[in-house]
């Protein structure tokens, strides 16, 4: 059994890696075969070279974008969890405010960003706010759902032993909500990055505050397609790394009971 497990784990890494290699090889082959100019489609080798050559610039931009992303993500987790706790404690509050959380979520950030950038003088803060608006909703909705998704039997049990509201919240609702909360984090971390990039696009901040979005914008205008690809690659890898970090965190916290609980349930 452990042998097949290990085999599965190897496959889980090897299979997508194999796909990546295949795609890169095909890409390279096509560029070479049709002799495509590098200002339209650069070959992956050229992208890699550009990535190395422009690393200093890209790394600086990455740091800018990452700072905004992480700040927005942290705020989204804090604010989202707080709102979810309030919602879970009062149906009335949830009913009155949840529609506005939805409105916040469905309004395209590109449409709102110019306003925020006008209203908030500090550009960095404006960018963080934009990304926060995009990232906060999954934390609110998932955590609220989680705090409410409590085994009714356990709730009866807590009532029978005369548990206080606080004991019910801390000993039952919070652990029950944990899997939902972490699922929210996975979505939210990616959205924070997307929000940060979109906001940068709208703001068009250059000079010292130039993030990855600005580099992509500039590279596009200058037809520096290899750099555009390189910046895109950095952005994508950052998103993947964020997601992976969230998966790791969620496994580290829930690993003991939740994942296995899910598989045990599906066996029934």
């Amino acid at each position: 059994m452990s042998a097949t497990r290990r085999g599965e784990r190897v496959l889980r890494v090897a299979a997508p890696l194999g796909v990546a290699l295949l795609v890169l090889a095909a890409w390279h082959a096509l560029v070479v075969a049709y002799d495509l100019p590098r200002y339209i489609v650069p070959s992956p080798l050229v992208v890699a070279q550009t990535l190395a050559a422009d690393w200093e610039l890209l790394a600086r931009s990455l740091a800018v974008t990452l700072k905004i992303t992480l700040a927005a993500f942290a705020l989204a987790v804090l604010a989202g969890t707080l709102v979810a706790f309030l919602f879970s404690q009062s149906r009335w509050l949830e009913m009155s405010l949840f529609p506005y959380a939805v409105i916040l979520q469905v309004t395209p950030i590109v449409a709102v960003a110019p306003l925020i950038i006008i209203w908030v003088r500090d550009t960095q803060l404006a960018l963080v706010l934009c990304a926060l608006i995009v990232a906060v909703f999954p934390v609110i909705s998932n955590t609220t759902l989680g705090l409410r998704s409590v085994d009714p039997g356990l709730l009866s049990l807590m009532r029978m032993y005369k548990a206080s509201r606080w004991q019910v919240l801390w000993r039952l609702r919070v652990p029950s909500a944990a899997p939902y909360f972490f699922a929210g984090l996975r979505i939210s971390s990616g959205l924070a990055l997307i929000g940060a990039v979109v906001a940068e696009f709208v703001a068009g901040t250059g000079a010292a505050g130039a993030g990855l979005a600005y580099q992509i914008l500039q590279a596009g205008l200058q037809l520096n397609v290899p750099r555009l690809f390189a910046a895109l690659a950095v952005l994508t890898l950052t998103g993947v790394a964020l997601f992976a970090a969230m998966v790791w965190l969620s496994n580290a916290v829930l690993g003991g009971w939740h994942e296995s609980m899910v598989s045990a349930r599906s066996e029934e």
Partner: protein
Amino acid sequence: MSAAAPRAVVELDRVSRTYPSGTRALDSVSLTVAEGELVTLLGPSGCGKSTLLGIAAALQPPSSGAVRWWGEGPGRIGTAGHRLAMVFQSATLMPWLRVASNVRLPLDLAGIERGAGDRAARAALARVGLAGFEASYPRELSGGMQMRASIARALVTEPDLLLMDEPFGALDEITRARLDADLLALWAGRGAGQRLTVVFVTHSVYEAVYLSQRVVVMSARPGRLAGEVAIDEPYPRTDDFRVSQRFASHARALQQLLARATEAAAR
């Protein structure tokens, strides 16, 4: 009742329960359970057995009628000598807590010091045959063992009244028979001085005959008491009792009562 009769642990006096949806779950049910008794509520699903137990556990109020615990209101529950515990249909263990912590939960909620709680939890686990599983997670246990842990959690507060809502209904026949036997041992093992009162809900005629001193039969929609059968057999009850003539005749009596009740309800 004579003066020497054991005192009532829980008394339901013409208790009805109508849900907000309009469903009448219970219709004027009166039932008294005396100290040290092992009473079974038997009936088809939907006859309000679980509702009745919920009311007896003070988890929900009756729509009309009165309930008394040890002769008093619900304020009496939980004081020394008047402790109540309930075992639910499923084990309802917290999957994120180890077995010992699950069992310790009622003591934690009552603010009992951790060390004393741990000792009590270990003792309760030993009583249900789960010594050595303190550090396991619930998912690592079989269904029957999870139920045992659930019973240990009920026993950890040293209850005087134990309410059990079809606790073994989801288990296989063999496991159920073992747990039934173990329950009888726990009930008998309490000694004459401080006797455990058990109200056990089941839809199994055989389980009712095997366990009870008295079986209360219920009919469905709305839930009413259809009759009572005393199982006047000595304890301890052996596996031989399960296949004896007398067992069969008790079971037949219950089945006839159930059938009559179901017919009457259908009319």
